[in-house]
């Protein structure tokens, strides 16, 4: 399934005889931006390191030919370090069949980025240097000198601002020239003693590729790799001693110092410093003093997140009724009328207009708030703030036994859990990676946002943003709590150092923010919407079939197979507030195990089926124009409500009866009205908590299995189900404790006891089977 997953397949496949161009560089140098620019793809970009964790292929049309472009994860060094994502880049750069390496460096952080360039030159591959972000360098008072850099390095250098497309024609021409006449440049020269040691050790390594054997020798000499055989160990000892005697320095330090010195010399040649550096730095420092502050960083992050959701929901509310009313008029009533006029039978009109049309209506209703959420998140990502949020969370994360960069996949998880799980590859330590992966299913993905929006529109109309924010924060809290518990019980250990480079602050570009938001919205509308519409159609038919008088026959919805099966499960959910008549909610949960967006599709199918009789009247008399006018008339009233909401941002409505909620909802959609009748605000919130936390969707299960194996995947699903049930039960029982104090307290005590048993079991697992736990933790790469 899942519609919500934004892991797009690779761009167009490589051409048969096309030359291969690899994009290499430090994380957050702008490789994917350049990849999109060269290939016309729309791969996700972000102003933080670690957005790309796998290689991607695309085709670039040059002036006379085409080239296959390989986008690689960011890598700091070819010598080692980092997570599996950096290993992917190293494998391609050292062993891959590449005709040209384009090294993208950040012109505002040139000396640091040239360290990788020195290593790329050592591979002996044809190289082209892209001096990216020259605008930011200039804003920092640094004037890049591409010609001087090119002359000193012996490779072509192209200055660019990739995110604006500046320098694209020059780059295409340079690629064409570099493919025709490759330049390998001049690698840093190590002292003679080191070169002799490298030559000797390279010969002893059992590696065919010359670049790989040289880098293996460098790793041996640098102490990054232990010698595999006794002759290699003897040679290493001999040549290291010889280098120490000859130079007075450790060979490991000498090799690194040579590259540092080379990068320093090149950076000095390749840029001139102006006088404006101080002002920009002071602004950055002033902002960072707040957002990275030990005490303010986390509250600031939560405040920002709160604002995002309140603004999204409240702002989106202005257009919510317009989209709802207009789409209902067009896709449900209008299409039903057209189908009736075309002479189609009533049952088919009901299926198409009520099932599929109703699904479209439901998706369209939430386009506005979801689009605003995506816009604001993209703005934050592009500004450089999200990377700082991860940095600010580092202290809290480490106290929970996690590295700070575990927050990066978590933020990605707001869009979709699948790329978030894959994004955990940026984390170096296996234990840290396992914990980070197991946290991801609790992050609220965009598919779940649809469910929140539907319920918030009905039960928490005035303060839906706060409720959605609360659910997001609850997801984060449960994710962190999971890591904390597992890190102290089943997977003990200490977190590795946080590997993260802070990007510069940028005023987000309109194109970049729009593109990112549009990509996510498109996924929501097309994929999630398609699933909801299709499920709505299927579930419009399914509740019409039942086992009556010993045979399968058509029946009303309340006697259908779906109703009978779901009713059997309702008692399991009674402690979280479900009543026997709430079987559609159980159907939604069962179907939602495949894909979260299906929950709403299920409601849609069932409730529209129930309302089918009245719907036929609406198909015969659609009154499309009047409904469209009425929908448009809601905009000023909702705008006024938005302004009122700003005056009362923390107002909390009383948790009342279903009737009060139905009156308060004002929802036009039949599905939303039916929702209001079936839940109270309290049971609705408990239900939302269950939806937030219970089993991951099918695609997330697939990603989990791929990253951590079946054992941890099964644990994740069972653990999620247990946590969801426990949390929803505690919330409902605590909220209704005045109605039935004894049973509520017993239920809460039972959940607490079960949690204690779980923790004890996990601790025993971690203590008694450390080897097995370690194997399990390392059962993935």
């Amino acid at each position, binding site marked *: 399934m899942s519609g919500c997953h934004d892991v797009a397949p690779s761009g167009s496949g490589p051409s048969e005889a096309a030359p291969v161009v690899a994009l290499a560089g430090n994380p957050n140098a702008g490789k994917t931006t350049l990849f999109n620019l060269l290939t016309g793809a729309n791969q996700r970009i972000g102003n933080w390191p670690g957005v790309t964790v796998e290689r991607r292929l695309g085709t670039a049309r040059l002036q006379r030919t085409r080239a296959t472009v390989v986008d690689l994860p960011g890598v700091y060094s070819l010598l080692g370090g980092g997570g599996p994502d950096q290993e992917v880049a190293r494998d391609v750069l050292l062993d891959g069949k590449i005709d040209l390496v384009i090294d993208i460096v950040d012109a505002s952080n040139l000396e640091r980025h040239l360290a990788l360039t020195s290593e790329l030159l050592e591979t002996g591959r044809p190289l082209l240097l892209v001096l990216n972000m020259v605008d930011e360098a200039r804003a920092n008072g640094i004037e890049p000198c591409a010609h001087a850099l090119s002359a000193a390095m012996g490779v072509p250098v192209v200055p660019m601002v990739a995110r604006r497309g500046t320098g694209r024609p020059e780059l295409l021409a340079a690629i064409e020239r570099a493919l025709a006449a490759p330049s390998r440049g001049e690698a840093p020269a190590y002292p003679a003693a080191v070169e002799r040691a490298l030559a000797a050790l390279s010969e002893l390594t059992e590696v065919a590729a010359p670049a790989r054997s040289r880098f293996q020798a460098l*790793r041996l000499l640098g102490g990054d790799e232990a010698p595999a055989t006794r002759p290699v160990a003897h040679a290493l000892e001999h040549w290291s001693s010889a280098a120490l005697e000859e130079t007075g320095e450790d060979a490991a330090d000498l090799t690194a110092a040579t590259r540092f010195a080379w990068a320093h010399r090149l950076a000095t040649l390749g840029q001139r410093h102006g006088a404006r550096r101080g002002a920009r730095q002071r602004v950055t420092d002033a902002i960072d003093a707040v957002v990275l502050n030990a005490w303010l960083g986390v509250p600031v992050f939560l405040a920002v997140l709160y604002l995002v959701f309140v603004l999204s929901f409240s702002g989106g509310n202005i257009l919510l009724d317009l989209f709802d009313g207009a789409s209902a008029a067009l896709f449900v009533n209008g299409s039903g009328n057209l189908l009736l006029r075309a002479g189609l039978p009533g049952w088919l009109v009901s299926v198409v207009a009520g099932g599929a049309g109703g699904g479209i209506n439901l998706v369209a209703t939430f386009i506005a708030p979801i689009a605003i959420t995506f816009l604001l998140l993209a703005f934050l990502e592009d500004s450089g703030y999200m990377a700082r949020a991860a940095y600010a969370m580092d202290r809290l994360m480490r106290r929970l036994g996690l590295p700070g960069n575990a927050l990066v996949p978590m933020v990605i998880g707001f869009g979709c859990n699948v790329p978030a799980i894959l994004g955990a590859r940026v984390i170096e330590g296996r234990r840290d990676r396992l914990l980070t992966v197991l946290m991801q299913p609790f992050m609220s993905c965009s598919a779940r946002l649809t469910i929140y929006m539907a319920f918030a529109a009905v039960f928490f109309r005035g303060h839906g943003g706060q409720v959605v924010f609360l659910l997001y924060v609850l997801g984060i809290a449960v994710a962190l709590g999971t890591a904390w518990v597992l890190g102290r019980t089943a997977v003990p250990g200490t977190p590795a150092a946080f590997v993260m480079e802070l990007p510069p602050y940028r005023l987000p570009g309109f194109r970049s923010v729009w593109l990112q938001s549009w990509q996510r919205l498109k996924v929501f509308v097309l994929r999630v919407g398609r699933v909801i519409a299709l499920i709505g159609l299927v579930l419009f038919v399914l509740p019409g079939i039942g086992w009556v008088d010993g045979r399968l026959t058509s029946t009303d919805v309340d006697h259908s197979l779906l109703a009978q099966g779901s009713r059997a499960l309702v008692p399991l959910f009674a402690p979280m507030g479900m009543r026997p008549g709430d079987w559609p909610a159980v159907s939604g949960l069962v179907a939602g195990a495949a894909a979260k967006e299906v929950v709403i599709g299920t409601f849609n199918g069932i409730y529209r089926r129930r309302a089918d009789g009245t719907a036929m009247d609406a198909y015969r008399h659609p009154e499309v124009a009047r409904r469209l006018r009425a929908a448009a008339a809601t905009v000023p009233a909702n705008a006024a409500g938005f302004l009122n909401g700003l005056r009362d941002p923390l107002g909390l409505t009383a948790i009342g009866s279903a009737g009060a909620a139905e009156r308060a909802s004002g929802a036009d959609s039949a599905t939303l009205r039916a929702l209001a009748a079936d839940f109270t605000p309290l049971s609705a919130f408990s239900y939302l908590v269950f939806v937030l936390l219970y089993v991951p969707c099918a695609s997330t299960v697939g990603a989990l299995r791929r990253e951590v194996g079946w054992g941890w995947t099964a644990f994740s699903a069972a653990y999620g189900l247990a946590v969801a049930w426990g949390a929803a039960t505690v919330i409902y029982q605590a909220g209704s404790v005045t109605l039935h104090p004894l049973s509520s307290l017993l239920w809460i005590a039972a959940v607490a006891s079960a949690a204690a048993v779980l923790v004890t079991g996990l601790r025993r697992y971690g203590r008694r089977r450390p080897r097995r736990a370690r194997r399990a933790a390392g059962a993935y790469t």
Partner: protein
Amino acid sequence: MSPLFAVRDRLRERGLATPRQLAAELELPLAVVEAAVAHLERRGKVRAAPPAAEPGCGTGRCGSCRLCFTAGPDVPWVRWSGPPAGARRQEPAREGVGRAHGVTSPALLDPPR
């Protein structure tokens, strides 16, 4: 002189410093100093020194004194733990793959610019 050796020698001389101090004194980009410190840390020549290492800190817990509050998310002291100047010692090759090259924990370092 290579920036790596410049950082190493200054740190050996001072004993304790922050990367930001080293960057200012040596007129090097902070990110380069951080990369140099990360290399020296991998080589076992420097280690993170919590504020407790400072005589002014009485509690021994990072973030518990005013110094931490005003200095940023974590006070990024690093302490020289290699051989003193003039000593010659061969570092044995270590097992396993090296840590990330060029970046390290914010517990150890300032944010790179």
